């Protein structure tokens, strides 16, 4: 073999160029010397087409046609050169000016191919075909088999793709300066939701609640991705509850990104924390309570947020310009307390009411397997106290009444941490709050352990165990003063991304418990089905007279008793556009 006696420099070029046909080989030997590079203008199966292109080009380096063996087929390349490295760009440019885009450099580069091939087969290297970038149809298996295509397919694909006219349309610059901007796109999803309540409840309410919602997202970036704009409006129309029919701007935001800081302005959503059963530390956004009683849905919060990224972590400053009131279900809304919350006339501690500007700061960092967040919030509490406002009869006995939300100004310091040991994740959230009566503390801590491929299946089972504590004890207006949460998350790892989460929250003192199930999976590419169920159990049954209801409301042993008859099942279908 001629290759065996050639110096390695030349050999490398042959590896790249493929095995030229015999007549071409000798010419190539003479033509090429160490380090010589050629610009490949185009490649053709048909030699005559290659020749006619070469003949038609007027260049300082007269083009030549050379045959190469690629994947068992002979290709005729139109080569321009030899060119010096500094000439390459100008030759490619010159070709472009003649309407031939996608010229690439065939390089005799010793560094990348130092070894002589072991045998002649080396040269039959299918991968040295001209670059095929941007010329394919995604997701079409017929065009892209994993193995080498049949000769027929290959030929037709190359025939059509490698004429200069087509190449012109599909630029092949693979060294893109800067970053790309997104010129803007809309995405919409529409969901229909059906909720069924098992019992009419204390207020004798309808059991079937249908509802529809729409969420749209507009997103665009400019300035090479350093400026981002997003707009996300949301609207729900509920068949039963006027209070649940609501509109919200989830996001209307401009983000400017710089080297080690980001400025985020507008209506946004922020999440802080690590635990699963309760989100103590998370405080920036108001809960969209009518959307879902589990507190996971949030209302958009207006803010200016400066985020600094440093070696010692991420430091965020928040200026929260304006307050969002918590929404509550109306007369026919469910699940609801037997006493209606009158959110038309809330009480604010701050004279500025909902126009008070609040502040928050948060630092997060990680040290190997330990993640830490430290935060402070100073402003109007997102969580109102609910005070009864009663009508009484002539004997002073309450006959009717509503609950009035009271928004105190609070200071809350929060800590969240997460530590991983193998497949164990240990989690902690703790807060200390002043401003709502005496200063108090609360914490949630526990672990999540995941069994990957449980019982030899593809699925993962995650077990969550958390303890919820509040040092106000029975005076705490919320669930979680001395509770245990146990959760099972099963992920099927199937193409439909089916998951199910079962959570059991048990109040150690009162024996009450709450069970929730959440399961979801995709149907086809554009539909998703979500199933949710909530079951309230334990606690004392409440008689359906106003005094009993009031007593139950005041009873520290009964957090869930009032929800006894509010068990429900929710089925939601989401269509993505």
């Amino acid at each position, binding site marked *: 073999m001629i290759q065996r006696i050639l110096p390695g420099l030349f050999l490398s070029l042959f*590896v790249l160029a493929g095995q030229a046909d015999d007549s071409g080989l000798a010419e190539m030997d003479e033509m090429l010397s160490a380090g010589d590079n050629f610009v490949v203008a185009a490649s053709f199966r048909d030699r005559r087409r290659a020749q006619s292109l070469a003949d038609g080009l007027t260049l300082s380096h007269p083009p030549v046609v050379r045959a190469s063996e690629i994947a068992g087929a002979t290709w005729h390349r139109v080569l321009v050169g030899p060119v010096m490295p500094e000439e390459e760009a100008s030759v490619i440019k010159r070709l472009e000016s003649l309407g031939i885009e996608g010229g690439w450099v065939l390089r005799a*580069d010793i560094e*990348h*191919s130092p*070894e002589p*091939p072991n*045998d002649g*087969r080396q040269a039959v*290297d*299918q*991968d040295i075909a001209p*670059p095929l970038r*941007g010329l*394919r149809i*995604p*997701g079409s*298996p017929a065009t*892209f088999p*994993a*193995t*080498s295509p049949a000769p027929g397919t290959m030929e037709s694909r190359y025939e059509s793709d490698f004429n200069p006219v087509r190449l012109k349309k599909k630029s092949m610059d*693979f*060294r*893109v*300066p800067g*970053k*790309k901007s997104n010129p803007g796109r809309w*995405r919409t*999803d529409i969901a229909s939701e059906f909720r069924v309540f098992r019992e009419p409840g204390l207020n004798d309410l309808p059991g079937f609640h249908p509802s529809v919602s729409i969420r749209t997202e507009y*997103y665009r970036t400019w300035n090479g991705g350093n400026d*981002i704009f997003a707009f996300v409006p949301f609207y729900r129309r509920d068949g039963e509850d006027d209070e649940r029919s609501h509109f919200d701007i989830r996001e209307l935001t401009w983000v400017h*990104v710089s080297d*080690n800081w*980001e400025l985020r302005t507008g209506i946004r*959503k922020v*999440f802080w924390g690590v635990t699963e059963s309760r989100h103590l530390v998370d405080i920036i956004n108001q809960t969209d309570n009518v959307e879902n009683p589990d507190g996971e849905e949030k209302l958009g919060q207006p803010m200016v947020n400066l985020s600094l*990224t440093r070696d010692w972590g*991420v430091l965020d400053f928040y200026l929260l310009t304006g307050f969002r009131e918590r929404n509550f279900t109306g007369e026919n809304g469910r699940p609801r307390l037997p006493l209606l919350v009158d959110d038309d006339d809330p009480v604010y501690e701050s004279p500025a009411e909902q126009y008070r500007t609040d502040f928050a700061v948060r630092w*997060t960092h*990680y040290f190997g397997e330990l*993640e830490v967040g430290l935060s402070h919030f100073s402003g109007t509490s997102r969580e109102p106290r609910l005070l009864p406002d009663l009508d009484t009869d002539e004997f002073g006995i309450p006959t009717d009444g509503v609950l009035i939300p009271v928004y105190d100004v609070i200071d809350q310091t929060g800590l969240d941490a*997460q530590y*991983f040991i*193998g*497949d*164990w994740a240990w989690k902690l959230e703790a807060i200390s709050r002043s401003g709502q009566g005496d200063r108090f503390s609360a914490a949630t801590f526990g672990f999540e352990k*995941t069994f*990957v*491929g449980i019982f030899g299946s*593809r699925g993962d089972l995650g077990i969550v165990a958390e303890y919820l504590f509040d040092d106000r004890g029975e005076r705490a207006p919320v669930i979680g003063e001395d509770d245990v949460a146990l959760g099972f998350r099963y992920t*099927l*790892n199937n*193409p*439909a*991304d089916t998951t199910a989460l079962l959570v059991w929250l048990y109040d150690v003192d009162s024996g009450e418990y709450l069970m929730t199930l959440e399961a979801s999976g*995709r149907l086809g*590419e*554009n539909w*998703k089905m979500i199933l949710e169920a909530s079951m309230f159990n334990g606690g004392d049954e409440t008689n359906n007279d106003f005094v009993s209801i009031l007593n139950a409301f005041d009873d520290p042993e009964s957090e869930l008793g009032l929800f006894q008859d509010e068990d429900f099942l929710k089925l939601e279908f989401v269509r*993505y556009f």
Partner: protein
Amino acid sequence: MMLKQLLLAAILGVPLCLSAETPEEKGLAIAVEADRRDQGWVDMRVTMSMILRNARGDENHREMRLRSLEVIEDGDKSIMVFDTPPDVQGTGLLTFSHKAEDDDQWLYLPALKRVKRIASKNRSGPFVGSEFAFEDLSSQEVEKYTYRYLRDEMANGLDCFVTERYPTDRYSGYTRQITWIDKGHYRIQKVDYYDRKDKLLKTLTFSGYQQYLDRFWRADSMAMVNHVNNKSTELLWQEYNFQTGLSDRDFNKNALKRTR
């Protein structure tokens, strides 16, 4: 016997030092050389289409964008973001791979605006329902395995080194992998994965290698076939862009949250 070998070596011109190399040394040398040849790409952007096929031939599709940053002294950094299916659009995965320790990985859930860290042990599980495990798609640093050269063999029509490698990660889902690396350009052509019971579980085949910046070889297609359940996943890579000006600031939790 010895004399005969010497004589043979002299006749064939084979340097003796080669035979002194142990299979372990040779296996490592191949991995180091492959790694050395792929140094200097700085950063990369690419889009991926994933086609999941079950035994009946039903298909599921996913589209993703990947950007990565080369980190010479440690493992590479990357962010992968989903474009489809639409219910997971904007979901992102940030990975800091490390040579010696376990990789750090965070998942961003756009609906909740929540960044969740993924425990390193969970990376042996399937990636988005595909036949690829998280660990199959992580940066393949030399230090993540120990090696043993087995033999020379043809694969994908190319003369290859066949090397066995053993994951150093104690949480890996594999006991060993057999790799075929072509001698011409040190590109990985094929990988056989053996599960914890040392049974052949999957085969990954690379095809359509193309050279970028006259230097870096990247495959257009990676096809993973599961021999146990007869499912397969094909990963098609498109629009490779190198040296696009990415830096550390594009690879942190803030960057993960803003990419959608």
